[in-house]
C-alpha cells in the first residue's frame, strides 16, 4: 500500500512543502527513509517505531520505504517524525485516508507518542496557508505561534492518539485561535524607558534622530557614561512594528529556536548585543546547516555592538555588506540561503584604551598616538556606514539625583512615528523605507540644498576639517532632521545639526 502525507521543511526563513510518501510491501522486514535527510531524520525511525507501539497501534513487520519529496533537497530536524508515523499508519489503513490531502503535519515524537515542539513553525504555517491545505496539525506548544496566520485552521495535538482519533472521526480537535490585536496592545509596554536616563539631552536627541531615520550610530564615551543604558532603550522609541514586520521577525527567531515558549508573535523590536568575542558566522549567519546570525536576529530592531574596537577585525568587516543590502546571502555546500538583515547598527566605544579621554574628572593615561591607534582599529569602510557619531559624557551625581521628570519613550516614539510616516510616504514604491537607505542619486533628488545651505556645507568642510566621506551622511541626517520638523526643504539649521553629528571626522580627535 502507498500513502502520501504533507509536511513542511525550511529553506532560509521560508517553508516548503514536503510530501512524505510511504510504501509498504512484502519482503524482508526493513525501514528505509530516503530523500536526503540528516541524522535527526534518519534517527526518526526509532522514535516512530516506539511511539506507534506505545500508542497501542500496529507497526507493520514488512518492508517500509519512506521517501521525502522533493528528494533533492536536504532535510533536517525532527519535525518530520509525526508525518512519517502517520504515513505508515495510513499505508496500513489504521487511519482514514479520505481527508488526508487537506492536512499538513509537523511535530517531533517522543517514544511514548507525545508530540513535542519544533522550530520554525511560523514559516511553516505561512507555507501551509500558501499551499492551500485546510488544516495544519502541530505540537500544542507551538499552537500560539501558528495561530497568528490568518485563514489557517490550526489543530494543536498533545499526543499521537489524539490525531489518530481525530482523523478517524472519533473525537474532533478544536481549531486554535488567538486575539492578535490583543497581543499587539499588551506587548507595547516596555520595561525600559527613556525616562530612566537622567540628563544626556544631547545623546537622547541624537538617538531620536537615529531612530527617526533608521541611521546607524556610534557612541563614544568613558566607561560608565551610560552608553549601554542608552542603547538598550533605543528599541523603545523605534516605530511600532507592523504585523508584517512582526511576522518576519518571529519567523527568524522561530527558525533559530529563540522564540520564548508560549509566544505567538514577537511584537517589540529585537535588541541583540553579541559579546565582542563573537565569530563571523554567528554575527552574519552560516554554519553547515545555515542558521541566521545576530544581524538577522536583529532584523527590524537594533544590533548593538558594545566595545566596538575589541571586536575581531574581520568580524566587523563581514558586517559591511549586510548593512548595505539589508540581506545576508549564505552559500554552503548544502544550500544557498538569504536571511533578511535590516537592523539599525548601534556601536559603543571607549574614546581610548584607558577610557578616560573625555572624562573631565579622571586622568587619561594614553598618549595621542595610542588614542589614534585605538580608534584606528575601526576601518574606514565600516565608519562609512555609520551616519551619526555621538559623544557621551559622564553624568554628574547631581543630575542622577534630580527628580526632574524626563521625557518618556512613548512621547518620543510618537514623534519618531510621525517622521517615519513622512519617509514611508515619500519613498512609496521605491523599495526603501527610510532616509538612511538613500542612494547617491536619491540624495541628489531628495536632499536638495538651497544656496545658503550649500555655502554652509562648503564652509564647514573647509573650516571644520570634515573628511569627504561625511558629505552624503550629513545630507541624509539633515533630511531626517527636516522630516522630524515636517519641513519640506532642508534648512540651514537642519544641516548645521547634522554636521554636529560627525565628531569622528573632525580633526581635533586626532590632536
Amino acid at each position, binding site marked *: 500500500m502507498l500513502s502520501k502525507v504533507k509536511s513542511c521543511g525550511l529553506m532560509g526563513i521560508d517553508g516548503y512543502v514536503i510530501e512524505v510518501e510511504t510504501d509498504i510491501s512484502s519482503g524482508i522486514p526493513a525501514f528505509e527513509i530516503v530523500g536526503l535527510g540528516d541524522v535527526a531524520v534518519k534517527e526518526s525511525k526509532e522514535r516512530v517505531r516506539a511511539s506507534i507501539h506505545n500508542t497501542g497501534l500496529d507497526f507493520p513487520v514488512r518492508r517500509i520505504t519512506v521517501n521525502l519529496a522533493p528528494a533533492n533537497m536536504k532535510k533536517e530536524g525532527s519535525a518530520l517524525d509525526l508525518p512519517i508515523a502517520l504515513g505508515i499508519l495510513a499505508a496500513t489503513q489504521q487511519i482514514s485516508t479520505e481527508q488526508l490531502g487537506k492536512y499538513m503535519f509537523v511535530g517531533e515524537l517522543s517514544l511514548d507518542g507525545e508530540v513535542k515542539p519544533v522550530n520554525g513553525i511560523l514559516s511553516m504555517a505561512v507555507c501551509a496557508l500558501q499551499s492551500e491545505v485546510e488544516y495544519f496539525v502541530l505540537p500544542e506548544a507551538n499552537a500560539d505561534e501558528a495561530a497568528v496566520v490568518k485563514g489557517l485552521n490550526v489543530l494543536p495535538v498533545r499526543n499521537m492518539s489524539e490525531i489518530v482519533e481525530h482523523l478517524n472521526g472519533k473525537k474532533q480537535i478544536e481549531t486554535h485561535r488567538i486575539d492578535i490585536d490583543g497581543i499587539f496592545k499588551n506587548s507595547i509596554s516596555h520595561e525600559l524607558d527613556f525616562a530612566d536616563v537622567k*540628563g*544626556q*539631552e*544631547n545623546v*537622547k*536627541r541624537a538617538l531620536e534622530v537615529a531612530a527617526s531615520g533608521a541611521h546607524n550610530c556610534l557612541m563614544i564615551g568613558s566607561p560608565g557614561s551610560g552608553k549601554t543604558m542608552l542603547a538598550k532603550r533605543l528599541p523603545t522609541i523605534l516605530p511600532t512594528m507592523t504585523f508584517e514586520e512582526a511576522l518576519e521577525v518571529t519567523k527568524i527567531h522561530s527558525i533559530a529556536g529563540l522564540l520564548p515558549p508560549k509566544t505567538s508573535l514577537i511584537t517589540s523590536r529585537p535588541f541583540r548585543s553579541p559579546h565582542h568575542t563573537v565569530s563571523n558566522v554567528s554575527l552574519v549567519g552560516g554554519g553547515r546547516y545555515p542558521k541566521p546570525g545576530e544581524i538577522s536576529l536583529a532584523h527590524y530592531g537594533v544590533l548593538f555592538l558594545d566595545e566596538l574596537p575589541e571586536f575581531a577585525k574581520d568580524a566587523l568587516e563581514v558586517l559591511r555588506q549586510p548593512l548595505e543590502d539589508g540581506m545576508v546571502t549564505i552559500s554552503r555546500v548544502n544550500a544557498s540561503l538569504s536571511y533578511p538583515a535590516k537592523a539599525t547598527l548601534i556601536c559603543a566605544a571607549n*574614546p581610548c584604551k584607558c577610557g578616560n*579621554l*573625555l*572624562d*573631565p574628572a579622571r*586622568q587619561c593615561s594614553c*598618549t*595621542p*598616538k595610542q588614542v589614534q591607534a585605538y580608534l584606528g582599529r575601526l576601518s574606514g569602510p565600516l565608519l562609512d556606514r555609520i551616519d551619526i557619531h555621538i*559623544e557621551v*559624557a559622564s553624568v554628574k551625581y547631581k543630575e542622577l539625583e534630580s527628580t526632574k521628570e524626563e521625557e518618556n519613550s512613548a512621547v518620543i516614539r510618537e514623534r519618531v512615528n510621525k517622521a517615519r510616516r513622512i519617509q514611508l510616504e515619500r519613498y512609496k514604491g521605491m523599495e526603501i523605507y527610510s532616509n538612511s537607505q538613500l542612494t547617491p542619486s536619491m540624495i541628489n533628488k531628495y536632499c536638495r540644498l538651497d544656496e545658503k545651505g550649500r555655502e*554652509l556645507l562648503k*564652509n*564647514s568642510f573647509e*573650516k*571644520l576639517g570634515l573628511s569627504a566621506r561625511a558629505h552624503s551622511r550629513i545630507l541624509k541626517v539633515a533630511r531626517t*532632521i527636516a522630516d522630524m520638523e515636517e519641513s519640506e526643504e532642508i534648512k*540651514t*539649521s*537642519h*544641516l*548645521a*545639526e547634522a*554636521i*554636529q553629528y560627525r*565628531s569622528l571626522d*573632525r580633526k*581635533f*580627535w586626532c*590632536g
Partner: protein
Amino acid sequence: MNHCKVGYKMFDSMFYWVWLSSIPGMGSRKKNRLLEYFKDPAGLWDASEEELRKISFLNGGSVCRLLDKNLREDVSRHIENINKYGIKVINIQEEIYPECLKNIYDPPVALYVRGSLLKDEKAVAVVGSRNASLYGLTMAERLSYDLAGYGITIVSGMARGIDASAQKGALKAGGRTIAVLGCGLDKAYPAENKELMERIAQTGAVISEYLPGVPPLPQNFPARNRIISGLSMGTVIIEANEKSGSLITANFALEQGREVFAVPGNITSPVSRGTNKLIKDGAKIVTCAEDILEEFIFYQRTYNTNCQGIKEKKEENIFKGLDENERRLVEHLRNEPLHIDVLSKQSGLGIQLVNSALVMLELKGVVEQMPGKVYKIKV
C-alpha cells in the same frame, strides 16, 4: 693629531665648536672656563697634554676626553648630519647668541638652531604640565596669544600639554615662538608635535644644545629647562603638579634672576598644586597678559601701539554678526568652557537649537569644539 682635519676642506671655526659641544661628561660651566683660558676652541684643540694637565679645574678624565681621538674623528660625521637637517650652529662668541642666555651660570657653548634667532629677542617662557586640564590648556593658549600680540616671543619646550598649547597660541597670533628641545633636532619629540615643530622652525626657532642624533634622555630635560628660562625675561608656569619639571624651570629662573609668574588654579586640582605653591612662595599671580608685561620696562612703549587695539577689537567683534541664540550661548561660554548639555540647560535653549547654533558659531570662528562635546570661546 691633525689627521682628522685632512679631507674636510671647508672646515672653519664651526668644526671646533661642534667638537667642543660634543665632548661628554663635562659641564657647560667647565667648557666656558676652558674657553676663557684658551680664547677659542681651536686653541683648545691644539693644546698639548702637558698644557691641559696644568689647568687646575680639569681632572684626569676631562683631559683624556679632550684628547680622545674617537671624539675628534666623529666631528665630521656630526657636521654632515648638521648640514643634512639644515641646522645652524651658533656659538657663544657670536653676536647673534642670545644675550640673556649668555648671562646665566652655565650657558651652552654652542646652540643648534633650526629657524632664526633675533638679536634683540623679548621673550617670555610659558611652561607647564604635560597632563594639563582643559582650563590649563585654554589659559596657555590665551596668554601666549595675547603676549605674542604684544610682540613678545614665547619660549617653551614643545612638550605635550601646556607647552604645545602655548606655542600654538603664539603661532595663531602670528607671533614668534621658540621651542627648546631636550634631544637632537633631527626628530621631533614628542613625535606627535612634528608638524608643530616645522611650523615653529618656519617663523621662529627650534633650539637644542644637543647634536642631532642625541635621544631624549631624562637627564636632558632639566638641562633643557635652564635654557628655556635663560632665554626669557620671565617664566610663566600655568599648571604644574608638586614634582613637576616646570618647577625646575621656575627654580632656574629664580637662580638666573628672572621673574617667575604663576597662573592660579583650582585648589582641589592636582595639576594646580605646584602653581598654587609658587604663588604662596611669592611668585606673581597672572590673570592676563598685562600682568606679565607691567613687570618689564618696555611695557609702556608697546602698550599704546598694540595692546589697546587688540583688546578693543576683541570685545566689540565677538558679538558682531551673531543672532539672538548665538549671542546667548556666547554669553555663557565667555567665563568657562562648557559641555553642550550644560550649555543647553544654562541658556534655556532646546538641544537642537544649541546643536545647530554651535556649528554656526564654529563656522564664524567664535567658538571652538574640544573632544567630548565641550565648547570654548576661540582665542
